[in-house]
């Protein structure tokens, strides 16, 4: 295309990669958390639930600031980075993933927890009386019944990661091909008055958001029909 540099696609690819990795990690880490929150009778579980939900309320800059400290050379992130000779996890793709996982966690955990809770105790009791071990009951009963929750969680987690800005800017900086994601790129284009590129990316994001939410609603409706 005339006048548009190829570097516009780099942030798109990077954002997609970040969102995929983050969503996969969130499903892996968020599922046990959601399961525990849905089924534990510990009195302090709502404290944990609150911690998980904090990013919904906190300004991204607050989370970003503390992450920068934690990931930096003097924080635990620096210690981890030193394992392979690095100095810091900030300003790296790994740092972005860690930030995104924390930032998008509530959007994945909440729908899955809701689905596990809505299912109730009964299906698992039935499975147990049919000789299913807790592991088998989880995979053959709990997960399939909570599938709409998993889908909602995955979509929200993915979309939210694609759309984040503040946290990324705080911990990731703006290194092309490494940490420069879509939202940061749009900000950059605007700053440097490249409105045409900014418009392409921003317009794309609008279409993406519309498609995601529409798809989710359609899927939810289909599940509601099946359940009935």
């Amino acid at each position, binding site marked *: 295309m005339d006048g548009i540099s190829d570097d516009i696609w780099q942030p798109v690819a990077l954002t997609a990669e970040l969102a995929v990795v983050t969503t996969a990690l969130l499903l892996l880490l968020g599922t046990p958390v959601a399961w525990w929150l849905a089924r534990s009778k510990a009195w302090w579980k709502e404290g944990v639930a609150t911690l998980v939900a904090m990013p919904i309320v906190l300004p991204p800059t607050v989370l970003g600031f503390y992450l920068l400290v934690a990931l930096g050379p003097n924080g635990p992130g620096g210690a981890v980075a030193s394992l392979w000779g690095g100095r810091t996890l900030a300003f790296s793709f790994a740092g972005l993933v860690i930030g995104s996982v924390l930032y998008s966690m509530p959007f994945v955990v909440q729908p899955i927890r809701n689905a596990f809770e809505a299912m109730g105790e*009964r299906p698992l009791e*039935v499975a147990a*009386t049919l000789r*299913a071990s807790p592991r088998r009951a989880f995979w053959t009963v709990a997960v*399939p*019944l909570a599938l709409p929750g998993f889908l909602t969680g995955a979509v929200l987690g993915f979309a939210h990661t694609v759309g984040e800005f503040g946290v990324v800017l705080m911990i990731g900086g703006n290194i092309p091909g490494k940490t420069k994601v879509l939202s940061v790129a749009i900000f950059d284009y605007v700053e440097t008055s490249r409105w045409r590129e900014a418009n392409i990316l921003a317009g794309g994001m609008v279409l993406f958001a519309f498609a995601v939410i529409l798809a989710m609603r359609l899927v939810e409706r289909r599940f509601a029909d099946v359940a009935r």
Partner: protein
Amino acid sequence: MTDRGIDARFNGQLGAFALDAAFRAPASGVTALFGPSGCGKTTILRCLAGLTRLSGRCLVDGEVWQDDTAFLPPFRRPIGYVFQEASLFQHLSVRRNLLYGAPRTPASGDGLGFDEVVDLLGLTKLADRSPGNLSGGERQRVAIGRALLSQPKVLLMDEPLSALDRATKDEILPFLERLRDRLFLPIVYVSHDMAEVERLAKHLVLMENGRVVAAGDLATLQSDPGLPLAASREAAVVFDAVVERYDAAWGLLALRVPGGELLVPSTPVAPATRRRVRIAAADVSLLTEPQQTSSILNALPARVLARRPLGENEMVVTLRLGAGEDGVRILARITRKSWEKLGIVEGKMVWAQVKGVSLAQA
């Protein structure tokens, strides 16, 4: 005492009252846990399954499922559990629901096979449907089939009919009767509906406020004037009888019962068949002389054993059919005035006139 069957004792706090119940259930046939709502019968069933954990012990066929040191989790207990609501897995077809608990290697010998269970419960046409479009009665039948196909050694049923309407109950009861006759395993059946208990059970555990009030043979408990059953409006006694002959000319069935013979209008039934007979206390009246002029067919000699006043003006009388010691006990509800007028006393022989007898599958 044989160690076949169930031997259980559970105790613990249960809401407002303390549950402390011990009972045995025979190795085959239906044992009904009967009592008002909230008396702890469902909790006992859940304890038998291991779904609820109270302190106590539970032995099945001599095997320890629970005692002071051991507790077998529910998925390691060879039980079939039918819940009040069918609780089918919505994400699986009827067939996959049925097979969920079935062992991967087909059971050898006396286990129930898929085809037999499907046939026994009338599920042939339903196997490939989704649970979402079954009727309430169909769902509960699938749930029962699913429990049976897990090859249980004990079948636990928690008011499986109480969520269903009258017509659906009547549709399922014959299936339950067939199961009872086909299965050689203990069935523990929780209910607060005496009509169901009378159709199905041979053994009764009577519960109140978390305690076992009485346990034993159904007819024995029903005719015990000391128990609340005899005092109820629907008091009746249920026992087994053997068909002696069928009188085709009048359409009457002659049934031999311990201590006498009953004539009951019926369709033909082969001699030597067993039938379950129910005689309601309200259908029995007492005579001091045999009467030739009554339209009532059954008037049997019986001995008055005991009585229990019902309020100011009525009483329920326990009778033993025949003059011997081995006659079956039935109840008669009469007024205090009749008792005085006829000069009845405990130990006296009378004639028990039975106006109505209902029959069911034994």
